[in-house]
């Protein structure tokens, strides 16, 4: 017993170090499945409150810019109303939008998340898509009563299915973790003719986003003979550094589509 006490007294620094190091590595490994970390779930609520406070002040200085954005969007929406009635085959799914304010945002990390000020209470549920006036932002990850957390497309885990507007080929959008203005496209085969400046849009197959939402334009591409797929780098339309408002996309028919498609697995 005495030896044990002496041992502890001699190596107390090492023991404290190993204890905390083990704790933090454990946290690091477990927080990979983000939702599991209970601490973060709780912290999220408080964080939301704090960030919405500072955001109130911030927002005041950008009223002019936001006004302009809203005006632009209004005109866009008016145009949509006019064109909507014509192509009734294309718009099979109907979508509802929940407008929200972004209260926390990051772009410099490997895994970026955003927080918005709408939650369970307003009908936001995990798995819904989030867009802004310029393009896609991400997918709802988890929600609390008043706030929800979005996995932005600037995240290692996000993969959004896209298509080339001109050629109608499908691929997926990934982010390699460095520049928030650019992202990569995977799974476009070598034989597809891609040109610089081609527009990339969401495809309507996924139940998360409506089809035809702009994502970005092709910045550069390279044929890769090893994988048989091209390495395409695109420039995102959404400037993640500046976004202030977001729209959560909600669709009842999506749920119906999902439940129908899940039948085939049984």
């Amino acid at each position, binding site marked *: 017993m005495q030896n044990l006490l002496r041992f502890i007294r001699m190596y*107390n*620094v090492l023991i*404290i*170090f190993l204890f*905390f*190091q083990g*704790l*933090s*590595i*454990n*946290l*690091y*490994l*477990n*927080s990979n499945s*983000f939702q599991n*970390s209970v*601490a*973060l779930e709780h*912290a999220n609520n408080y*964080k939301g409150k704090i960030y919405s406070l*500072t955001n109130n002040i911030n927002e005041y200085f950008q009223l002019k810019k936001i006004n302009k954005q809203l005006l632009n969007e209004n005109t866009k929406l008016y145009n949509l109303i006019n064109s909507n009635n014509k192509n009734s085959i294309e718009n099979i799914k109907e979508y509802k939008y929940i407008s929200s304010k972004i209260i926390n945002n*990051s*772009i*410099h*990390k*490997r*895994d970026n*998340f955003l927080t918005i000020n709408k939650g369970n209470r307003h009908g936001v549920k995990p798995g819904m898509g989030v867009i802004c006036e310029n393009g896609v932002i991400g997918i709802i990850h988890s929600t609390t009563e008043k706030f929800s957390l979005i996995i932005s497309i600037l995240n290692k885990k996000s993969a959004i299915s896209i298509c080339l507007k001109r050629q109608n080929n499908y691929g997926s959008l990934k982010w390699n*973790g*460095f*520049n*928030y*203005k650019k992202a990569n496209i995977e799974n476009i085969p070598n034989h597809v003719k891609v040109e610089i400046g081609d527009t990339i849009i969401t495809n309507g197959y996924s139940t998360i986003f409506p089809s035809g939402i702009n994502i970005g334009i092709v910045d550069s591409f390279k044929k890769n003979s090893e994988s048989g797929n091209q390495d395409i780098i695109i420039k995102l339309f959404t400037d993640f*550094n500046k976004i202030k408002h977001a729209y959560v996309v909600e669709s009842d028919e999506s749920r119906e589509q999902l439940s129908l498609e899940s039948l085939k697995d049984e």
Partner: protein
Amino acid sequence: MSKTIIKYIYQLPIFLLIQIYVLNEILFAAYINPYLYLIILIIMPIKTPKWFLLIYAFTFGLLIDVFSGNLGIHSTACLIMVIIKSSISKITIPHNIIEDTDELIMQKIGAKSFILFSSILIFIHHAILFLLEHAAFNFQILIKIILSTLITSIIIYITQLFFYKV
């Protein structure tokens, strides 16, 4: 010594708020984020009790982690930085010129040894931080580590001027 411990506990929320609300919003070249909060761990006197230093570093790292969404990254990096701090200080700082309770600032230990001392610590911290965050290693990450070290170092050199006592 307990006086200094209380002083550092006071300073924790100040640096935490600066880091979260000011510096996390600043980006150089689109992905470089300065981490000023390291200064408080770097300038702590050599004779600070080790247990306090470790608990402090862990708490600080964890708080930064919670606010940036990825648990365990900053706390791991901070703990490793703190545990090797004493051995780095033995190599870089001439020991006869400082007292036990002196903060390790440029005024006390000289510009050359401060720059060397803090740069090594910041580099180690950033290397661990970004390797854990990206869970990969390639040329781009190396560039990110080096550039971030440079910018954090510059900001820390400037900030430690405020710690001067006339």
